């Protein structure tokens, strides 16, 4: 836009020096301008972003079938999903893991299945990929930190793998372990968390049809930053339960100690089901910011999957077993 200069400025309109050098006013003005600018910038960001983000292509996965469990909500962009997440093995920053995980080696890769099973085994990742038909599961993802996304995972029910191992009737819990690779995962050389990262599920949670092992995203092989080659996705729980780069799955009769739970038991329960009524000590869980949205939205009990999973916890005090 071309702004025409007025023909003449009367001297009465020229701001006296004493005013324009007033530091306080300048700073107030700057604050107001910046505030307006930030709001404007954010508005633009939300309205200019296009849907299909172009990115260097990964390996296409074939034979993916749609799933009735997928949400019809609009998935977040590949760009946002791969550039905003927690992967403490690489960095405690949410923007850094993508770059740091670029050269992470996902082949060769074996997953050990042991503990209370009839058939303990070591499975090669490429065999795991053929274990069951790959499904697209578009799930809501709710982070314990109060943000959320919609993610089009590709994977298969964890139950398919569990059935192959034939757990003993005494097996009540499943434990998962992330790889230890300090040469590739910089934070594993420091005591950021108690490595290796360990997560766990109760057997019925693990066998539930919504619980998947993800091997892909947006029809492509799972990007390293999201936990390649194999990660857990439990959509009704906070995101940190979705352990990444799994190398070991064990079956036990007692509740396993899990990484964040050991670190701060009052902040991260073993169950960690999404629950807007149960506040995290440091922030409310009543609402969440969906990435790409300006206003916060209310958080739903079990992340909106109550119809499918609430029965798993009937009779349990969710405030006590959080």
């Amino acid at each position: 836009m071309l702004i025409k200069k007025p023909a003449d400025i009367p001297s009465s309109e020229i701001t006296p020096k004493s005013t324009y050098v007033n530091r306080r006013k300048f700073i107030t003005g700057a604050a107001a301008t910046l505030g307006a600018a930030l709001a404007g910038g954010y508005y633009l960001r939300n309205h200019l972003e296009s849907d299909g983000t172009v990115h260097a292509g990964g390996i296409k996965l074939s034979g993916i079938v749609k799933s009735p469990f997928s949400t019809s909500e609009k998935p977040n962009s590949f760009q946002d999903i791969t550039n905003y997440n927690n992967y403490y093995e690489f960095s405690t920053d949410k923007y850094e893991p993508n770059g740091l995980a670029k050269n992470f080696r996902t082949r060769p890769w074996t997953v050990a299945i042991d503990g209370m099973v009839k058939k303990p085994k070591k499975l090669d990742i490429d065999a795991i990929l053929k274990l069951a038909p790959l499904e697209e599961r578009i799930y809501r993802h709710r982070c314990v930190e109060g943000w959320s996304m919609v993610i089009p995972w590709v994977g298969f029910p964890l139950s398919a793998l569990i059935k192959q191992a034939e757990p003993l009737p005494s097996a009540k819990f499943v434990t998962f372990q992330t790889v230890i690779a300090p040469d590739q995962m910089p934070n594993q050389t420091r005591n950021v968390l108690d490595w290796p990262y360990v997560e766990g599920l109760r057997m019925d949670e693990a066998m539930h049809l919504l619980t998947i092992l993800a091997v892909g995203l947006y029809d492509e092989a799972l990007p390293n930053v999201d936990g390649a080659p194999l990660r857990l996705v439990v959509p009704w729980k906070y995101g940190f339960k979705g352990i990444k780069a799994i190398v070991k799955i064990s079956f036990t009769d007692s509740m396993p100690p899990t990484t964040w739970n050991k670190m701060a038991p009052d902040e991260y329960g073993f169950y960690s089901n999404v629950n807007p009524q149960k506040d995290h000590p440091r922030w409310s869980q009543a609402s969440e910011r969906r990435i790409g949205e300006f206003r916060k939205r209310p958080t739903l009990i079990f992340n909106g999957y109550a119809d499918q999973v609430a029965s798993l916890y009937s009779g349990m005090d969710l405030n006590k077993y959080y």
Partner: protein
Amino acid sequence: MKPPPEKFVRLLKLLVFLLCLGPACVLTWKGFHNLLGANPIDVITRTTGHWTLNFLLITLAVTPLRRITSMAWLIRFRRMIGLFAFFYGSLHLMTYVWLDKFFDVHEMLHDIAKRRFITAGMTAWVLMLPLALTSTAGWIRRLGGKRWRILHRLIYLSAAAGVIHFIWLVKADLRRPLTYGAILAALLIFRLIAWARARLRAHSAEIREPVGT
């Protein structure tokens, strides 16, 4: 040490002023160009928070730097940098009030009462407020130099509350907040030593020249 020419100091002040405005400009520019990543509000919150602490610590570094280098004229930058700490602190608070809580007073009060990191952060900002308000020459005159100096010691508490706010906020990996803590501790210990030495000097002077003789 001989102070530099007035013209040089003025030019330097302008330069420092623009430099201090830099982080806010970069943030605004990135906002307009869609470069704040997936969660812009999170980036704005963090960036303004870090710069508040940065400017608080720079403000507190002015006096030790003056003493060590004997460049007394550095004092002329302190007020400006201190006001920038308040400026970034206010932006940080505004981000919380507006973009995080959408002016929901009830929820904010609940937050301040219940969540200790918010309590600490709010304390830090509230403690800065009287300092910013009384930063003018007029207020120094009205309060008198001595009372003004005592009042402005609140900055020690504000900076400490700010660092605690950061420590309590992190989930794991305390390296960055503890770095701030260590720098703050060093700056405060410098003052403690200076104060103890001054006391000692005054005391020995008293012994040599008893009052009344």
